């Protein structure tokens, strides 16, 4: 009965209106590189205070889900992730678009993002408490192991040359050490620049490597008068067939499960979830060689992953009052502004409101599905301009986007420098993925490793006594070596 009221509440004209407003603005902000979901929610939060809680939250929930989904659009079309969570969608999405399947890629993004969002909402509605309790078990030691596990993905995202991938991956780890570190508050490699105290901004570097690097590469290699989409846009096969979708179900259920847990763990978000899901799916896939070359399967798992994180993060936020990621940190602030404190009491005192939130998550995802599938034909058409026009538009969107993250010119310069680095990486056939992964996970690994050692007075034994950490270490080692062992065995059988 509660549920019926909750769902009926979302269809109140004003609530539904603000939900749609949220979805549309999220779609715009999320598509622009540098304007992350965090920023989208932060911008709309003050506006939401003018509305009553149900309307205000409808808007914020709409923005949050939609910005994560639409980050994949720019990842697919211009190789620049709109939000960090869609980083892994560039690996296959952009390749698909270059082959003329941009419509298919966009629809895959929409369908699986919505699936991920819905699956995670079901988790939120059914077993939020046990899940949040489990997430609490991740302390510094477990975090360090999670980061280590993430780093084993460097091999998966390296493409054809694992050594090259590991080399740039470790370079990324090295660059993650720039800035003021939390454990001893020591300034490393900042050269007296205040702007570098917080280190190299991950989003800015990512926009540079992927976005600017790609544009520079196009400037170097292509004829100027060409239109953007070289390959003929295929008219057939843009809407995925039910058979295709059905074949993707197992991998995506697995990706959703991983991502919901990662989302629930405080401090780990969509960026890590999508790349881990992609790497893991590649290891388990029947066609790992297609990954990174335009695999529909690879694209779909990343899309599922980044939206599945939302439900996980909301779970921790609502049931424990702890932010699961940067966006939920802001949502906690706005809940408190409305006079509600997230935490177990919220489920008892404000149960109708929690149900309304869950209903809004479901409806927001359905709105995204409709909106996404109907607009997927428009986006590729936006790219039917001269290449030169697109270059300028993408360059300047990247500039403003990188600056907008923190209003920092240091971020902007870092983006420009890594843009040029990205070009050389491309020319040398060096993969970007491992570098970004190293930069992303370096801080998490180092800080938590040293934090653990500070806690245990320098003893490493905790890594082997914590059940979670041992399990993760075993999974990491097995999944690192299993694919090569299996293929080795297969080869042996074949030669016999």
């Amino acid at each position, binding site marked *: 009965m509660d549920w019926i009221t909750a769902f009926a509440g979302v269809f109140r004209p004003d609530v539904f209106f603000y939900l749609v407003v949220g979805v549309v603005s999220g779609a715009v902000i999320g598509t622009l590189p540098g304007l992350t979901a965090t920023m989208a929610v932060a911008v709309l939060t003050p506006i939401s*205070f003018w509305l009553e809680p149900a309307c205000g939250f409808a808007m914020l929930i709409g923005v949050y889900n939609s910005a994560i989904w639409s980050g994949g659009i720019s990842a697919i079309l211009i190789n620049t992730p709109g939000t960090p969570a869609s980083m892994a969608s560039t690996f296959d999405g952009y390749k698909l678009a270059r082959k003329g399947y941009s419509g298919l890629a966009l629809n895959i993004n929409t369908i699986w993002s919505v699936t991920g969002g819905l699956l995670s909402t079901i988790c939120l509605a059914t077993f939020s408490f046990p899940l949040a309790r489990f997430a609490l078990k991740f302390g510094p030691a477990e975090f360090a192991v999670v980061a280590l596990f993430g780093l084993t993905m460097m091999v998966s995202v390296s493409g054809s040359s694992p050594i090259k991938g590991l080399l740039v991956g470790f370079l990324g780890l090295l660059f993650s050490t720039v800035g003021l570190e939390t454990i001893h508050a020591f300034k490393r490699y900042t050269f007296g620049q205040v702007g570098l105290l917080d280190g190299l901004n991950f989003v800015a570097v990512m926009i540079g490597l992927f976005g600017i690097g790609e544009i520079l590469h196009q400037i170097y290699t292509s004829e100027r008068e060409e239109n953007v989409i070289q390959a003929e846009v295929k008219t057939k096969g843009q809407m995925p067939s039910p058979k295709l979708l059905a074949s993707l179900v197992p991998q995506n259920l697995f990706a959703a499960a991983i991502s919901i847990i990662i989302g629930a763990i405080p401090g780990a978000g969509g960026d890590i979830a999508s790349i881990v899901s992609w790497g893991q799916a590649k290891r388990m896939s029947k066609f790992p060689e297609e990954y990174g070359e335009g695999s529909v399967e690879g694209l779909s798992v990343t899309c599922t992953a980044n939206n599945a994180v939302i439900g996980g993060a909301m779970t921790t936020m609502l049931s*424990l009052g*702890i932010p699961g990621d*940067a966006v939920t940190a802001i949502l906690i602030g706005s809940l408190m502004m409305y006079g509600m*404190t997230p*935490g177990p009491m919220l489920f008892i005192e404000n149960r109708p409101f929690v149900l309304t939130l869950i209903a809004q998550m479901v409806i927001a995802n359905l709105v995204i599905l409709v909106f996404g599938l109907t607009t997927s034909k428009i986006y590729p058409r936006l790219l039917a301009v001269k290449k030169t026009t697109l270059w300028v538009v993408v360059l300047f969107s990247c500039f403003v986007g990188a600056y907008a993250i923190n209003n920092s010119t240091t971020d902007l310069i870092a983006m420009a420098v890594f843009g040029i680095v990205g070009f050389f990486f491309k020319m040398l056939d060096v993969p970007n993925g491992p570098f970004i992964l190293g930069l992303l996970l370096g801080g998490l690994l180092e800080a938590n490793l040293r934090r653990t050692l500070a806690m245990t007075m320098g003893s490493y034994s905790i890594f082997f006594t914590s059940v979670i950490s041992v399990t993760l270490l075993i999974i990491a080692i097995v999944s690192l070596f299993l694919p090569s062992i299996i293929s080795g065995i297969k080869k042996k059988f074949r030669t016999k």
Partner: protein
Amino acid sequence: MKKKLLVLLLVVLVAFSLFAEGSKEKGKFPTKQINIVVGASPGGTSDVVTRFIAKDVETQLGVPIVTTNKPGGSCSVAFEYMAAQKPDGYNMMYMPVESAMVKPLGLTTLEPSSIRYIGLAMYLPATVTVNKNAPWNTFEELIAYARANPGKVTVGNSGTGSIWHFGAAGIEQVTGVKFNHVPFDGGAAAATAVMGGHIDVAAVAPGEVLPGVQGGDLKVLAIVDKNRSNLYPDVPSFGELGYDVKVLGWGAFGVPKDTPDDVVAILEDAFGKAIQSQGFRDLCEKYGLTPGYLNAAASQEFAEAQAVWYQNEIPKFNLK
């Protein structure tokens, strides 16, 4: 052809520079949007307090007030930015306790005397919080245990050199025990680690442990303030327990140093009203902040005195 282009560009440039300057009326303030910079990420206490006050001041002054976040280096990034802005009253900054700490920490050369404070809004006490299953039910029990086992109690703070690191060190000083300090990325992360049982104590802001306390996962043993907190009326304060309060967080607002007196007076008045409003007092109660207004001159004096204190104390903590 190119000449025409050049002319067109020039015309546009001139038009825009006129547009950007806007209406320049002498002797009237404010006539356009005021920007407030927060040196922390959205969603935290600093951000919420600033946005709340800004909304009130907006209705008083009748111009839009826009809050922007420029996080980094314990507010030093925003601090350096603000010190270089035009001193016209349209550029303001939220000045947290860290503004008195960044110089002795070696993060920047700026100190409270490099800025003009226009009013202090509130104080922020630390709470000594433990897991509900912890063997200690009072602060005295915790201290007795810590005294018997020096360096064994793990105390989470919001980062080495952060306010709550000194908060925990201040507790060590007045009680004469030795903790094992574990730095986290922010106070909420430390509170989470206590909830998960990874560390023993979190000495962080009241709002950061509130969800855990309400949910029954955490218990607060003491408030590091002279008086009890409205948020935890049953928890004894340091004042009652007979200890000195060494470290207290606070938040104020500031403008670049050379902002004219008449502009400062207008801002001081508007912010003073907003800070003393019932609405802000309610917000403080919700977040466990201690409301306490100081006017421009008093807050300047307070901040500079704090800077002297940290200048003397920070080297003793042997950070580097």
